[in-house]
């Protein structure tokens, strides 16, 4: 809402007051706002207020060629753009009946897991910053940058790679990049004890995060919670294992869970997932040199490609939870409809509005960050 259109609610004399939390606030993730009604510092009700990042992706995609949308989709989620590219590409492949080469599948999994490591490092920093601990933020962003260097080497771009295209990937891996990625992973893993000292074993942090924004298993299931937030409630569901895509059924990894369902449990799950992603990446690094062959399957002319009519729902386990793309084709050169189900659409609106009441004002930012809510995914 533009400031000139905001009309403050006129309360009668009361112990309650309304507070706008965001869109410009250091404790809010992205451009997003929460309208809080407070009594003292206790939240009485909370309303999510989105739309500040609405760029109309779904509408624009209906006006672009199938291949042009490759440039649009990663922009839906800044911290974790690779799953957007991969899910869109896979949906188009499902519609077109394309089987992508094995090497492309392994490369895609590499990109996805590297992106997950990036997103989780970002998350550690974001969560710590909500408690006023900024060193973690600087460390997380700095370490993430090393993986962005690898992305830049592979794709030519650091964030919006536009690398995964329907049919495969845009180009093969540069010589020696797997060795360099391996070194970066060794470094990231070696940094974890330092993160532990500063953050994960820090009694202040543990006390601040324990019992905050607690979700029961029943609530998580009935409120549509997915991803690490669901696993923090004790449910070991992961799209990679339970609805596998690419080569995930050939990989060996665990599904970390916690049972407390609070902000601390959500963070612990992600710490363990970071290690699991490194474990997966090492398997990929060991296997990829043995997987030869092309990186793309034969495609029709992408500028005159009429994707067969039909509809598909492709899903991916992104760093934030279940990502879905529902794509409809009428057999034309452009999608008839693309619906993006970002995991944050549930976490940042539905779940946050229900977890907020009863919490204290200083915990609102922490609850939002612990859910890893990504507003651009909500606004699309």
């Amino acid at each position, binding site marked *: *809402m*533009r400031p000139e*259109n905001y009309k403050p609610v006129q309360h009668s004399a009361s112990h309650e007051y309304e507070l706008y939390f965001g869109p410009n606030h250091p404790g809010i993730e992205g451009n997003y706002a929460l309208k809080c009604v407070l009594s003292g510092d206790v939240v009485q009700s909370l309303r*999510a*207020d*989105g*739309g500040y990042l*609405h760029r*109309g992706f*779904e*509408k*624009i995609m209906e*006006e672009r060629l199938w291949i042009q949308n490759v440039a649009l989709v990663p922009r839906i989620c800044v911290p974790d753009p690779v799953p957007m590219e991969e899910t869109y590409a896979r949906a188009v492949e*499902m519609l077109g009946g394309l089987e992508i080469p094995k090497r492309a599948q392994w490369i895609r999994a590499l990109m996805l897991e590297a992106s997950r490591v990036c997103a989780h490092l970002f998350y550690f920093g974001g969560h710590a910053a909500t408690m006023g601990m900024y060193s973690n933020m600087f460390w997380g962003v700095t370490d993430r940058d090393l993986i962005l260097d690898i992305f830049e080497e592979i794709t030519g771009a650091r964030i919006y790679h536009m690398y995964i295209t329907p049919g495969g990937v845009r180009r093969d891996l540069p010589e020696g990049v797997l060795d360099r990625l391996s070194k970066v992973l060794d470094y990231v893993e070696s940094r974890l004890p330092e993160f532990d000292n500063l953050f994960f074993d820090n009694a202040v942090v543990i006390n601040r995060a324990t019992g905050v924004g607690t979700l029961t298993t029943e609530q998580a*299931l*009935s*409120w*549509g919670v*997915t991803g690490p937030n669901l696993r923090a409630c004790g*449910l070991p*569901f992961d799209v990679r294992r*339970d*609805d596998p895509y690419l080569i995930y059924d050939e990989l060996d990894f665990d599904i970390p869970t916690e049972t407390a369902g609070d902000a601390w449990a959500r963070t612990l799950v992600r710490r363990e997932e970071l290690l699991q992603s490194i474990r997966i990446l090492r398997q990929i690094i060991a296997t990829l040199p043995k997987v030869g062959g092309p990186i793309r399957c034969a495609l029709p002319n992408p500028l005159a490609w009429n994707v067969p009519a039909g*509809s*598909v*729902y492709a*899903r991916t386990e992104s760093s934030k939870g*279940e990502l*879905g793309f*529902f794509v*409809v084709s009428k057999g034309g050169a452009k999608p*008839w*409809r693309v*619906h993006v*189900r970002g995991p944050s*659409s*549930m976490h940042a*609106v*539905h779940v946050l509005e229900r977890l907020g009441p009863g919490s204290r004002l200083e915990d609102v930012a922490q609850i939002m960050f612990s859910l890893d809510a990504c507003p651009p995914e909500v*606004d699309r």
Partner: protein
Amino acid sequence: MNRELESLDAVFREMPDLKVEHTGPRRTRIQVEADALPTLLELLKGRAGYLHLSAISCVDWPDTEEFELVYHLWSYQVSNLISAHTRIPYDPGRYVSVYDLHAPAVYFERDIHEMFGVWFEGCPDQEPFILTEWQGPPPMRKSFDTVAYVNDTFEWREYQPEWANDPSGGKG
């Protein structure tokens, strides 16, 4: 066949008018009449463990003046995704909310109401969310022409900065 799959089969037997198609591994497409969809969702949830409403998608079909509503449901027990497709006419453009069965439906129904103009009876929240200051028609409808809207609403301005003509990018 395990107990959950038997239950799913029983649901299909109970609703013989469904058009069920297995479209791929762990994917089932169901075509269902609009008045039977809430019953289907209830049976799927109660008897076959389809607890997770992954999404509700809306598709505009102007040729037949219909909206297609697609309910994507996942069963944690049988690891299968059902996409239940139904169609409702433009006029009156109303449908029943499934909020009582799946609480997350409120988010998707609110979104569809905002973007397509479908009204969901029983949905507790259909307030504008993203387009709070939008006065025009629901923009995701095919009849909403974005280019025409831009031409009608904004003035085009010439923008040809010097650097755009300079192949060196201003570096001499």
